[in-house]
């Protein structure tokens, strides 16, 4: 807020803008062109640096294995092959890993969405004692360092007898995405005019009916965004899964990835292929919500 306060100070010379002699404009726009050229150049360099690891991931996955084990890595592979993918899929437990990942992330997200929608509706529509405290807790919980929570949560799951069980991981994923999802959906609740609900209630709807018939359909885009975000988080999580799930056939995809590192070395071709397969759904989903993420993260919806 101090920003807007200090802004008016510099506001005074605005009038001079109009009186700038037009003759002066030319050299400056010339210089602008030149500097734009420079900025574009740096932009291309930044583009290459940012995209290269992604490019290398995909290219390595599609490269014949003999080219991967070569001292002469070429920018473009001599031929494309799906051998690496085939090898990755043939790896032990690929099927069960997909199953685990799907079970864990979808169950967690569905549960989180139900609880988050209800809570978001409460804090978005009602004013009640303790509401602000509740909202602050939602933020603080997201700021808890996950590495520090690892041991407390592990011990808690041990108490519940949830170690090496899907439901242990599901509960943790569910609750970890809950604060973010609640906060995000609340943003959508606030933007739905109250009058819609009220007129439904005047027409004889109960509060519950008004919610289901009027609010819920309008919340759909928000729910979609929040669930995609939660899904990505659950899909990407590995630390907790790594510690809690001990049976090979319960590993989620991310934990399964560690299989490619053996004492004899790393099968990079298969690792890159497997990584590509894990990343593709995330990348696709991410495209839908990236705009909302950038704004959401700075307004209380902190990445979990």
């Amino acid at each position: 807020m101090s920003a807007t306060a200090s802004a008016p100070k510099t506001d005074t010379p605005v009038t001079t803008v109009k009186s700038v002699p037009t003759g002066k404009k030319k050299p400056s726009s010339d210089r602008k062109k030149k500097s734009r050229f420079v900025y574009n150049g740096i932009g291309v360099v930044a583009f290459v640096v940012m995209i290269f690891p992604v490019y290398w991931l995909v290219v390595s996955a599609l490269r014949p294995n003999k080219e991967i084990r070569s001292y002469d890595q070429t920018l473009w592979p001599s031929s494309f092959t799906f051998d690496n993918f085939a090898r990755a899929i043939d790896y032990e437990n690929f099927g069960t890993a997909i199953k685990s990942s799907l079970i864990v992330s979808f169950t967690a997200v569905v549960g989180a969405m139900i609880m988050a929608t209800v809570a978001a509706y409460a804090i978005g529509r009602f004013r009640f004692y303790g509401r602000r405290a509740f909202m602050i807790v939602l933020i603080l919980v997201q700021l808890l360092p996950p590495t520090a929570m690892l041991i407390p949560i592990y011990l808690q799951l041990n108490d519940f007898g949830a170690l090496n069980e899907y439901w242990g991981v599901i509960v943790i994923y569910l609750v970890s995405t809950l604060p973010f999802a609640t906060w995000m959906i609340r943003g959508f609740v606030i933007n739905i005019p109250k009058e819609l609900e009220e007129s439904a209630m005047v027409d004889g709807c109960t509060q519950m009916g008004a919610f289901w018939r009027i609010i819920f359909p309008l919340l759909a885009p928000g729910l979609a965004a929040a669930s995609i975000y939660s899904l990505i988080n659950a899909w990407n999580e590995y630390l907790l899964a790594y510690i809690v799930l001990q049976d090979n056939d319960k590993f989620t995809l991310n934990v399964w990835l560690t299989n490619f590192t053996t004492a004899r070395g790393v099968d990079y071709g298969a690792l890159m292929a497997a990584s590509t397969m894990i990343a593709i759904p995330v990348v696709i989903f991410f495209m839908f919500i990236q705009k909302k993420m950038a704004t959401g993260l700075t307004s209380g919806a902190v990445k979990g």
Partner: protein
Amino acid sequence: MSAADMLKTPGGPDPQASDTAVADKRPAEVHEPKTSGGGGRRRNKGALLPYFLIAPTVVAILAVFVWPLIKTTIMSFQDVGRTELWTGAPAPWVGFEQFTEILGDSAFWDSVVLTIVFMAICVVATLAIGLGIALMMQRMSDWARLMITGALIAAWSIPLMVQASIFRWLSDSDYGVLNMVLTKHLGFDFQGHNWWLDYKQGFLIIGAVVVWGAIPFVAITLYAALTQVPKELEEAAAIDGVNAFGNFRYVTFPVIKPVFQMVATLSVIWDFNVLGQVWLMRGSKPEPEYEVIGLYAFNKAFESNSFSQGAAISLITVLLLSGVAVYYLRQLLKIGEVD
């Protein structure tokens, strides 16, 4: 708690003084007579409804975050080893012994320093590069901006686990493209160079993953903030003879400052948690030089089977970062986000 203080801080210019608050309050009054038509019991029900709605979330948060934290606190004053953990036998109370033992352990301080230095370098690098990219994005042609936005989003969407795998592959001693480029194209002798033997070089690679992975969020968020800076202000300052740096310092930065602070705080918290990246890039058993604080706690708990020490370290970590968390919260309250 501190939450109560927070509530008062922005109290002066009530963040709810805006019209949304008015809009929010009015219907609440409208609802009430309607529901109370049935009698006192139903009005009561209406008042309890919001509590009913947040109850599942409150219970979940209590069970998964708050209660474990309380138990961690209790445990760190006991001596819980393997037998106590698995058989449920009562653990002896040891007072501050775990804390004195940890604080007296030089390995603990090594890991704290390592974590903080690493975090600071990563945060500064991320913010500098991210801000740089955001500023350039503002000034480049549309095609270039489109290209770089695409690259940023692509990098952003790559899962952490996959990011670490990619960078491990890039820095592989035999077939990694990094060594190849350094040797063949830049003339250094990096053939077969192992980046992990020296932990400083190892952390260079880990830092590269962290920074590379964090830049997209910073750049895109700051770019969004920069578009809010009125063009007239910058132009006016330029005409008044303010140079580019002064313009940034006195015109642009004050406008984007709240967002910048927020991004910085989040970066601090995220980069403090590098445990995962170290783990992934060094296999399941990292060398002692790579022992960041999360790893130190983990080893104490699971390798030495002293769960109380692991708990105590976790508690110390939470306390270390709570200052940053409160700062972030204050920023949010100041902006009026928590209305």
